[in-house]
């Protein structure tokens, strides 16, 4: 597993990317505006607002049940909010279904990886490209990013280890050439060394100008890759700030909902 990713230093910073994209002063790429969403009578999100600028990497952290996955599902269109709206690239996408949102450039790498078990690794990646959005990511690019995935390309996806499956799942989401990549709990159930290898691929994804929203329980990992951090508790924002200026003690208190 030592070669899960090509280690690569982060050559371009987010500011350059934003200028290249030409979206410096325009509206944010993603604007989740005052959203209530949830399952049944229990709202998992309560008036939550999340904004992500083009080229930015935002980490949404929080304990179990804070509403992180619900937020990603609402953005991806799997779940419809009961109140508020989701705007993407200035357009209201609240009424669009999940498959339509992929076409407009939102791709969710779901919690638990959710590979198609009866398809091979390569077929999983090909299905990821179903929407046929043009962009930098195709089979050779994903194989270069994750050399180990290339070696496993003919295997059924069900036969891979957890770390390998997660690499395939990220690659599959990239195949849609998203403008906004949503990563849900990449670290779930994986050894720390594997998680570090997977996150080492992130700079090479953001280099392409891709905006990333990661949801993590692994706070340290999330902060190390993000430009900005937003901490949720019971469906509300309790703390947000630049990743390199956030106070660990304050973050810990926010994470666990301890009053200070």
């Amino acid at each position, binding site marked *: 597993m030592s070669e899960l990713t090509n280690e690569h230093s982060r050559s371009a910073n987010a500011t350059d990317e934003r200028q290249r994209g030409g979206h410096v002063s325009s509206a944010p790429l993603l604007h989740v505006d005052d959203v209530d969403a949830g399952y049944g009578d229990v709202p998992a999100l309560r008036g939550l607002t999340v904004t992500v600028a083009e080229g930015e990497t935002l980490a949404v952290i929080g304990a179990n049940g804070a509403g992180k996955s619900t937020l990603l599902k609402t953005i*991806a269109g799997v779940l419809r909010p009961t109140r508020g709206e989701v705007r993407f690239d200035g357009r209201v996408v609240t009424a669009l279904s*999940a*498959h339509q949102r992929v076409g407009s450039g939102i791709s969710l790498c779901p919690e638990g990886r959710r590979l*198609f078990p*009866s398809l091979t690794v390569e*077929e999983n990646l090909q299905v990821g490209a*179903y929407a046929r959005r043009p962009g930098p990511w195709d089979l050779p690019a994903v194989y270069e990013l994750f050399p180990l995935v290339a070696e496993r390309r003919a295997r059924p996806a069900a036969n891979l280890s957890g770390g390998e499956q997660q690499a395939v799942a990220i690659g*599959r989401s990239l195949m849609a050439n998203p403008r906004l990549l949503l990563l849900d709990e990449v670290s779930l159930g994986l050894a720390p060394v594997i998680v570090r290898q997977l996150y080492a691929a992130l700079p090479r994804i953001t280099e392409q100008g891709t905006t990333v929203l990661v949801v993590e329980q692994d706070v340290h990992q999330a902060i190390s890759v993000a430009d900005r951090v937003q901490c949720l508790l019971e469906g509300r924002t309790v703390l947000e700030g630049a990743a390199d200026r956030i106070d660990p003690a304050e973050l810990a208190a926010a994470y666990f909902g301890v009053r200070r």
Partner: protein
Amino acid sequence: MNTVNAVVQGVLLGGLYALVAAGLSLVFGVMRIVNLAHGVLAVLAAYGSLLLGEHLGWNPFLSLLVVVPAMAALGYALQRALLDRALRGGELAPLLVTFGLAIVIQNLLLETFSADTQRLDVGAFGGASIELTDGLAIGWFPLLAAAAGVLVIAGLGQFLARTRTGRAMRATSDDQEAAQLMGIDNRRLYAVATAIALGTVAIAGVFLGSRSTFDPSAGATTLIFAFEAVVIGGLGSLWGTLLGGVVLGVAQGLGAAIDPAYGVLAGHLVFLAVLAVRPRGLLPSAVTA
């Protein structure tokens, strides 16, 4: 010699059963729907071919050029207008809806064509055969029907394995929500699957109607044989369906060799035996439903 003949004829008949069952197997594999109207839809196609023969003088094989696209279009519309809604109603709803649909179509056929038995006329070809040895002859028509079954199964297999739409169908069958996250519109995909299934059942209906007589109530038997072929082979597995069709055909052939009345019964008994011993079928698909 009699046994060999029974097996050979059974294998050929099995190819035809596989042709009938292919669409049933595809729809089940992709959507987990058991389409109880499948048999009567085959009969509907046979009546379509009959009309083209009566009014335009078309040979049944020529009529496929019209009947297959027409049935595919019907399948697309049926899925979008009716079965999609049924799918949202839980596991039982599609069964009830397709059962109701079968009754409606059967009675419409009865109203339009009466209960008289009909037969499609393929001309002299229908009776021609190749004599292999003394007492063992293979009819051209059963051979063609079996070949059509193998071709349809192989074609569907290639379609699912190699095309973008086929891959998307397998992905949707594995995990519908994850497939939507890949940009797959599962409802459009389901409509395409039903269109293909009804296209293949149209071919099957024309072959069935040319092989023996049919009337509006023939759909029930057709459905049972197709369903048995699918279950014997393993739910959702196309090559399993071909194998299931052959097993069923051979069982019926051997049963009929003992006594003509035992043919269908022998098929049912083999079906029950397979269910008892290998409930998931002979070639179950790799992933559990």
